[in-house]
């Protein structure tokens, strides 16, 4: 493999570290890029015993079957994307899952596709995180509807995204966005959060 330092994240052009430098004290919203996540897109029939158990054997947890919900697997966070579609999201250091899944599912009507290179992840948190997201997304992020641990595919401004609300006391979200939209979306959110004060963090 070539040196990892040659990799560039979709937001590398925005020089986020230098933005982080002029951080304000009591920002209502904190933003960060979480680059280089490994994402495996998994498709299959959840009603198939074989599929569910094969997935479980690799992921170390049941696939979340409830709409808009996430679960913690052994090495990956599992996000429900649709009735026959999931994401297994892991950090770069963890062992790759795709091949294992492919092996476990061979012969089944299922598909396993690496998609992480095509996404960036923008973390948005803070007391005004929900106010900010509401500006660009039709979803109701209120605790009673989108509690910590929820996830959903939707639109944020004019970009298609996957939201994942983390289990956190202050509202914290991770927003997966296609790399080519990342710069647009970052600037959009930063602008939307402007009135609350924005801190860019590491």
């Amino acid at each position, binding site marked *: *493999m*070539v040196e990892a330092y*040659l*990799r*560039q*994240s*979709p937001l*590398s*052009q925005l020089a986020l570290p230098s933005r982080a430098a002029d951080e304000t004290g009591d920002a209502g919203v904190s933003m960060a890029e979480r*680059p*280089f996540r490994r994402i495996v*897109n998994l*498709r299959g029939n959840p009603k198939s015993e074989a599929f569910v158990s094969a997935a479980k054997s690799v992921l170390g947890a049941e696939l979340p079957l409830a709409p808009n919900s996430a679960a913690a697997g052994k090495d990956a966070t599992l996000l429900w994307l649709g009735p026959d579609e999931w994401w297994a999201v892991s950090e770069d250091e963890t062992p790759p899952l795709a091949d294992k899944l492919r092996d476990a599912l061979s012969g089944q*009507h*299922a*598909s*396993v*596709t*690496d*998609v*992480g*290179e*095509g*996404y960036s992840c923008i973390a948005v948190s803070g007391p005004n995180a929900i*106010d900010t997201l*509401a*500006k660009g*997304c*039709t979803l*109701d992020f*209120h605790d*009673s*509807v989108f509690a910590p641990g929820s996830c959903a595919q939707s639109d944020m*401004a*004019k*970009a298609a995204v996957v939201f994942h609300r983390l289990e956190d006391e202050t509202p914290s979200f991770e927003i997966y966005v*296609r*790399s*080519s*939209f990342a*710069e*647009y*979306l970052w*600037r*959009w959110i930063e*602008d*939307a959060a*402007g*009135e609350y004060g924005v801190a860019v963090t590491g």
Partner: protein
Amino acid sequence: MPARFRLTEGGRIDRSKPISFTFNGKVYQGFEGDTLASALLANGVHLVGRSFKYHRPRGIMSAGAEEANALIQVGEGARTDPNLRATQIELVDGLKAASQNCWPSVEFDVSIVNNIASRLIPSGFYYKTFMWPASLWMTYEKIIRNAAGLGKAPEGPDPDSYDKTFAHCDVLVVGAGPTGLAAALSAGRSGARVILSEQDATLGGSLLSEPDLQIDGQPALEWVAAARAELEGLDNVRILTRTQTYGYFDHNFIGLMENLTDHLPQSAKPPKLPRHRLWKLRAKQVVIATGAIERPLVFSDNDRPGIMLASACRTYLNRFGVKPGSKAVVFTNNDGAYAAALDMHKAGIQIAAIVDLRAYAEGPLTEQARDAGLRILDGHAITATAGDKRVKAVQVTRLSDDGESAKAVGEHIECDLVAVSGGWNPTVHLHSQSRGKILFDETYACFVPGDSAQASTTAGACSGSFGLGACLSQGHDAGLAAAKAAGVKSRKKGSAPQAEDPNAPGGADRDFLPARWLWLVPGDKPLGHGGKHFVDVQNDVTAADLHLALREGYRSIEHVKRYTTTGMGTDQGKTSNVNAIAIVSQYFGCPIPDVGVTTFRPPYTPVTFGVFAGRDIGDLLDPARKTPMHALHEHAGATFEDVGQWKRPWYFPHEGEDMHQAVNREVRACRESLGVMDASTLGKIDIQGKDAAEFLNRVYTNAWLKLKVGACRYGLMLGENGMVMDDGVTSRLGENHFLMTTTSGNAAPVLAHLEEYLQTEWPELEVYLTSVTEQFATVSIAGPNARKLLAELTDDIDLSAEAFPFMTWRNGRVAGIPARVFRISFTGDLSYEINVPASYGAALWQAVMTTGEKYAITPYGTEAMHVLRAEKGFIIVGQDTDGSVTPIDLGMDWIVSKTKDFVGRRSLYRSDMDKPDRKQLVGLLTDAPDTVLPEGAQLVEKIESGPTMAMVGHVTSSYHSPNCERSIAMALIKGGRARMGQKLYSPQADGKVITCSVSDVVFYDKEGERTRG
């Protein structure tokens, strides 16, 4: 120096906070809490504008959103706002306001001649004249246009920013009068997520104008303050003041506009706070508590400055501590207006008379006025008014018993204020916008809400309940019911607030009855013969105009509206529509509901354009999609082209080069040595499943079952109408695994198209589709040195022509990066497309550039790519096709299978599809090799002398081809393939004609040896 008409005490203004502002260039003082209207009135300024058509002097008529008259231009230059209602402009230090639609000044406006000539310009006059000579219409029109319009549009780009947000709640309460507050309290206490929207800066609604009422044993405004405090303490309640609910859409989707900074002086505006915010709210339930609007009376010359709504007079007195005049005549048809007389009397305004249309004036307030010794002229009417820039006298005449005419000569009463009341109209706008029914209430002579069509209720004055007690209990009940209907399990109940009016007989539940409904007050002359009975004061529509329309056959109320323009002004007829409807009904002698109402449309009051754009303008209007190598291209000085949302390098000019030179250089490099381009934007769809090949077989025109693993194939996709939709190369990665590419702009539509067929037509196919467009960065290298370059970058792929032939792919490492290399070509030259994980795209590009230096590697953009492919006669979907072109038209029969079905197949066999004169794709060669046909040029068979010539087709692509050393073009020509060698002519806009001949569409390397080599 205190303003002349300001009371020394009372009102909700802060006398410790003076504010200075200018109006028509003159400086005035007001206080915090004032509106522009109240501050002007405090200074004795009544004349504020001119009317639309006759340019008659106009004053302040109301104290709220319904204002039709006092429209003001605020601010200057780029930060100016036309047509603002003086009654809703909060006074702010340094405010610059001016009258509009007048020249040279509001005091002396030359266009007043229109008033003098008004006999000649009744409603619809312009339809009857200005027709001769026909050629002069544009001149007449210019004059008409200059005379029309009210304020002036801003003069430069708006420096302010706007925001919008989605929101969700259980209960939206619109209006924070007593009803809305009671509703918000009961809903809020029950735990529902509540939003309370109030257009005013302050909560309280009509209570702000009521001096004496008590609620729950405390003065009403203390109750309001307590309610506010309680609501603010509930974290499930959000109060939005300065926020009008402007529109009620389907599925309980509501639009609100919040004004965040207009009330702040420029220097005090937080820099990042937007000016206005659009709330796009989904509410489970809505309580509409928007109150009611007082109705003026329609009498002769009822438009002079100083003629105001009675309730507005009370508001100015009680809320703003301003005397709207010093000597008033009250003109009413109901008991309610006596409250205004009493309040004014108490405040020291002389009540010259109360003119009451009722034959016998009675009612609880009337009795109080009698007791107070006020002069009541019942059975009387104002039949004329006088005063140029302010009313100075009225003529009061006894009415005939039927109210149809005025008797004898009347009494002349001097005054500087006329307070008018004609009853009340519930503000049913939002209810009606939600498609709720509205009904006519005979008792109160107004339209009231009927059944709701959506999850909403109306309560309080808005629903036709005018007593405070009823408003409070209705509000309370509505709030509770809404919370319950929204599925909230009540935390606690609480009881409805109780109202009292210590001063009033009839208590807090009195309304404005009894009343007498006399819609058109007779004047001293027949209608239309002298004084003007204004119905719509903004658009200068009189009762005579309404009659004229009806007489001329414009009978539907919708025709009346459009012919006279009544209710079409910025106020949308808030004070005029019901009067107009009633006058029409009287004309026909039919009941008012039979006339019907015109449609209530959003917005309730006008909403700023900017707020709909929010931050989605400028470079955030649309995402600019960038590839992983974008920054490198920028660095290399690329000029970009928009392809869909993508930014793609168009060409890479060297210093001093124009586009033509740059493109020529890039094109030549690809044929002579080595070019490189960023092809990352191509759509990529990963296709897996045991039926994947069968699926491709159905969506592409050609055959796919036998494609070998490791091989690639070009495919053409049609819509079901047989027209070309997209093309691209698809590769077989495994037995059950394919990777499809699509054109850059079509990636999403193609995936959607495939999913549609997969899910809805062929659910039995075991196939999964996943978009992987952005998983890979793609570097495409082309040219005779492509293989050499690649050889230097990889050591695990056998690049020999035998081991890695054209139209195959291989896995390996390129520049140390795991890569999939496709040997395919859109340029017609030896070419490879190297796909790597996207995060390595920039690294790969740099490696290719560095290693390629010795081959003078040349980055090329989309324009050079277009030239290269045109040399080869390859089409670009969307440029050489336009949705009306079949593969047969393109001469691509070779790719259309005759033996299987595929999407669009049957359409190719319709009767008009094989007509010989269909447009077919051919090449064109200009006679003069240096002349490049313009793209979009039309072609004819022969040049005629006249302007019309029969066209045979048009140029779709056209370039100078450095490799052919001449111009080349592609064109869609009627029966083109049968015309090989035929001369065609292209007449240009400048009169020149370009001569060319029809040729084959492949211009370069017809045998394709370079590609395969």
